[in-house]
């Protein structure tokens, strides 16, 4: 039987396409804020326990246990803050974009519950600047929540106060890194900060801060309503529940698919996304955003399980699956990803700032038939300075993950096409000589 979606966080927005983002529709037809009503009758610690029990792991990229993250807050240190990461920027990820535009009340409700659980009185949703419609809808949702007593002073008569601010970014990938986000929210360049101290101990304005992704926040109301055990009953191994995967590239039906973890890549790509477009064969695919090392046809029957992905030398990251057909040159894709990282490197750490630019230059000449015989070895060599060992999980010489991520495409080229590329580079060298002779 063909694989099916298991819709939890996307159920309502798929069913009600005309007005799912409005307060009336969400409240009347999707029980919006009923989980908040339940949560306000619970102790904060009980909420943290429930989320821990669910096994929910952050949906932004790192996959860290959400309840566990909340429990890292130092006792009795206040104020505390919640910063919701809505700065979706990992190439080929477009799930949060959908959740923000189509179901902002779910995000707002999850953010209020989370703030109450961690006893924060100020929460921020850091929204990607380019999401203009998303900003309108999220702000409208926040305004409606205030008008209906779900935000502000004495929420639902509980004595608990919370202010929630929608904060628009202004175009910057690294603001999606949790410490980069905090720098940006403080009015600085979005440069990541060294950890420790982790944000849970010293985050926004040096106060304890929890940074959670939009999809994570959207899941929280369901866990509160149905219970942690119910959520943990879905999924596979330590990857519980459902996840939204953004599938794009050379596929027949690109889009967001919410599935129970444990479904295979083949089921997701073939059954749900309609397979490689134009009836072509699969060349390779990237399983977790541009930062993740690549996989090929021999991995299609592997399950979407975060820990299994790690065993395969990659990650499910942000849940973005890019599919490339057999005609696509992997070196071209590697160059384009290198160009992205070179553009987005914040410049704080030398290996990343300088290395990402050199990667881009060398991959550009390789992709355009003017490579030098030892170019792949050259990349692997200076790649060692950016990410020692050029392996996965990556070694780091930089403050944040952007540095080592720049090496994922090169690592993949070397692993799967090493011999082929070296042969191609030898031919490029002949061509270079011919060109030089001709121009002499």
């Amino acid at each position: 039987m063909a694989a099916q979606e298991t819709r939890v966080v996307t159920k309502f927005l798929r069913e009600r396409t005309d007005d799912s983002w409005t307060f009336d529709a969400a409240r009347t037809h999707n029980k919006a804020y009923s989980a908040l009503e339940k949560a306000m009758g619970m102790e904060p610690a009980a909420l943290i326990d429930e989320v821990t029990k669910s096994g929910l792991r952050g949906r932004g990229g790192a996959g860290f246990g959400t309840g566990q993250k909340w429990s890292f807050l130092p006792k009795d240190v206040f104020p505390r803050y919640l910063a919701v990461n809505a700065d979706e920027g990992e190439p080929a990820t477009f799930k949060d974009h959908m959740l923000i535009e189509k179901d902002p009340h779910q995000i707002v409700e999850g953010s209020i519950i989370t703030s109450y659980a961690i006893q924060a009185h100020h929460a921020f949703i850091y929204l990607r600047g380019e999401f203009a419609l998303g900003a309108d809808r999220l702000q409208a949702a926040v305004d409606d929540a205030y008008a209906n007593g779900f935000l502000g002073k004495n929420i639902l008569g509980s004595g608990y106060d919370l202010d929630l601010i929608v904060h628009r970014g202004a175009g910057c990938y690294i603001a999606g890194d949790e410490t980069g986000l905090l720098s940006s929210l403080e009015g600085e360049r979005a440069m990541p900060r060294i950890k420790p101290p982790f944000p849970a101990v010293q985050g926004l304005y040096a106060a304890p801060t929890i940074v959670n992704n939009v999809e994570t926040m959207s899941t929280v109301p369901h866990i509160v309503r149905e219970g942690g055990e119910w959520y943990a009953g879905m999924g596979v191994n330590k990857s519980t529940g459902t996840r939204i995967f953004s599938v794009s590239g050379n596929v027949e039906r690109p889009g967001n698919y919410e599935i129970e973890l444990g479904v295979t890549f083949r089921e997701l790509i073939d059954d749900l996304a309609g397979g490689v477009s134009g009836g072509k064969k699969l060349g390779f695919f990237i399983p977790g955003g541009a930062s993740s090392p690549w996989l090929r046809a021999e991995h299609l029957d592997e399950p979407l399980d975060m820990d299994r992905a790690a065993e395969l030398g990659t990650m499910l990251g942000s849940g973005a699956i890019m599919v490339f057909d057999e005609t696509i040159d992997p070196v071209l894709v590697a160059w384009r990803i290198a160009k992205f990282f070179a553009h987005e490197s914040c410049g704080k750490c030398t290996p990343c700032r300088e290395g990402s630019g050199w990667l881009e230059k060398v991959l550009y000449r390789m992709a355009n038939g003017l490579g030098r015989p030892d170019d792949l070895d050259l990349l692997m060599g200076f790649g060692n300075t950016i990410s020692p060992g050029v392996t996965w999980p990556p070694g780091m010489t930089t403050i944040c993950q952007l540095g080592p991520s720049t090496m994922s495409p090169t690592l993949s080229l070397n692993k799967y096409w090493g011999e082929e590329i070296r042969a191609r580079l030898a031919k490029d060298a002949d061509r270079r000589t011919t060109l030089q002779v001709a121009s002499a």
Partner: protein
Amino acid sequence: MTFTDTERRRAEELVARYPHSKSALLPLLHMAQDRDGYVTTDAMEDIADLLGLTPALVLGTCSFYTMFKREPIGKLVVSVCTNVSCLVNGGPALVEALRTKYADDHDVHVEEVECIAACDQAPVMQVNYEFHGPVTSESATDLIEQYKSGALKARTISGSPT
């Protein structure tokens, strides 16, 4: 151009939303860009004054973010994605076609951008941060012309509603 009294009140409201005033810097820069069409030196000095920062610090933050323009770029920002999913679906040809078409049009600023999180619509573009995709160079030109004529209502070049 410096802040009028009304603008200064709006700016102060923005500042009051945050526990620390400096957090209002990005919102204030958006506000200034909405008003002037780009972030002027005067506006940065005004913002610095309001937040108790040096103008250099304001410039430091402003220049870090791609959405802030520090010179006039016209009325429409056309952002075309060429990142991987758009790369294999015609993004690079689209940006070249639009660049050529609008090379001499001072109202239209065509720029190549990184992934804008709409890969199911590849190749995708934004006009003043409104999404359109998938588009061809013809349908994209048609949309841009509609924004130019006012048949489609454009947001500000910072993406705010008008």
